[in-house]
């Protein structure tokens, strides 16, 4: 799966969860850039991503996620 395709799916998930159609994601987007992105929503994002791409994250996968770029790389690694 291309990074572009993953970005597209992630954008939809982010827009749903934060109920904000204006969200645009880049590799550098972090929790600092989205007002409601707290630890609780981080969990929701991960659960929604797992569901969307039919993948299962391990403890070590999600501990070091610094930004959206990391998320995309993680998904790409798992779905191949």
């Amino acid at each position: 799966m291309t990074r572009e395709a993953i970005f597209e799916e992630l954008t939809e998930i982010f827009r749903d969860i934060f109920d904000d159609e204006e969200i645009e994601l880049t590799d550098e987007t972090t929790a600092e850039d989205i007002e409601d992105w707290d630890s609780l929503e981080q969990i929701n994002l991960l659960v929604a991503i797992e569901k969307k791409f039919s993948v299962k994250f391990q403890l070590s996968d999600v501990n070091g996620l610094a930004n959206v770029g990391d998320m995309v790389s993680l998904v790409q690694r798992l779905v191949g």
Partner: protein
Amino acid sequence: MSILDYPFDSALILQKKKKLKKELLLKEGLIEKKIAILSGSTIGEVQNILELFLLNYGIKPVFYQGQYARYYEDLMFDDGALKDFAPDFIYIHTTAKNLENLPLPTDSAEDVNAKLNSEFAKFKACYEKALGFGSIVIANNFEKPFYRMYGNKDAVVPQGVVNYTTRLNLMIADFAAAADNFYVNDIDYLSTLAGLDNWFNLESWYLYKYAVSVDRIPELAFSLAKIIKSALGKNKKSVICDLDNTLWGGVIGDDGVEGITIGNEQPAGMSYTEFQAYLKKLTGLGIMLNVCSKNEEAIAKKGFTDRKEAPLNVDDFICFKANWEPKHQNIANIAKEINIGEDSFVFIDDNPVERDIVRNSLAVTVPEVSCPEDYIKAIDRAGFFEITAFTKDDAKRNEMYKQNAQRAQAQASFGDYKDYLLSLDMSSEIGAFSAAHSERITQLINKTNQFNFTTRRYTQGEVDAIVADKENYISAYAKLVDKFGDNGITQLFIASVEDKTATIDLWVMSCRVFKRHFEFAMFDYFVKQCAARGIATVKASYLPTAKNVIIKDFYEELGLTLVKEEDGAKYYTYTIPADYKNKNEVIKMEEV
């Protein structure tokens, strides 16, 4: 259908929760309730998703969230914050992760007993403390452990955590059975339905201290919402069933009574038989059954009378509408005849077109059902009839409504309405609220919508406070008996007394005793109580809702004076005349 209706897509709910909340908050007539959540693990989404399900039931929660994992301290050593919040409900979200004293293989049986007793004592202390706030208390029982030291034998030996949890859950069940206002949220069953490996996952626990997997939180929250709406009297009351391919297989008009599929001879027959048996059991809980089917009535009834394998009989139904009128008209008529709101019905029909028409034209709930083997699940899991309080009156409800049908027939033979009422040979026990009746009183207050002037809801704690305070309240319950049977407690009255003025806070009457002059009997009693206290001034109000239009002008009929009208709300005063003449002439009163 809302995406919050069973069967729901949990992932979709979690993902769309913000948007859903915005939409639900636009609903009209939401009732506000204060809910404290005290937890042994992360609450987070539990509260957010519970809010959605409650809003879907018309309940707007205001939350108080305890500190993370400090349910015990929050309850036992409340600094006044919880008390000040005055919760209507307290939810104690504890799970197997909060069992601190689990048995070990090195324990003796006596050691395990001691651990179990002290574990239970700790939770019991919390439950009792929570009940002391006068709230309705809901607590989880405990799910099974995710590993078993003894394998299958874990269920057998006292040192096994499976065995230990089973015993603890039974102790909690016994406590709940004996306590008023305490309900168990059965996560042992929920986790079984979900599968333990789905219900709990270690990643969520290690990372975020969620004791329930995030994607299972909607199921947990839905279960809680069902208990809360039931305690607030928002259960459904009645099922309306189609017949052909719903209660039996085939079309009785075409296939003939011998051609329909029912009974345990074939697999399809078994599914219909089991569904009928399920409905029959529902009647034991006071749920009323009705038929609405496009059929010839005489032929349709043969499906029950001539097929002995059918668990249901014709007289299990209150209304039997088998004709060729549109179904939504028949259903509207059933609602009128039984005299309960359309939104108290669940309609089961195999035909998607009929379901759609009924759903779009009436407030009736119409579950999506695809095949007979799913019918039971569609009713059961949706929790339409979630039981919290179950009173003797509930058990007798079907009988009472059947008697009402007989009364309607008797009425037809009288020219003068008063003669008819006298012929009913009515008598009523009336008296101030008492502790013995407070459960039924609370239930009736919270579920009555039509004859209800103020639509004020009371918790059992508030009712108990009125029972205890005879000085500042005039309260009354009334039972009604007639020659066809006992209707039980069907009318309630609360007035608060201040400076020789009585203000009617609440007056409700069950719809099944409308038009019997029973309301006059209550007013007479109230006047008498006022006189005994030297009160001559009465204040009253009518606050309009979507459902109480029927009594809009009732206070005028009683002779009260309208002093103010504002947005449909009406405010009255009344000076009790020295020569007040009793308005009830048809019911024999017995004051207790």
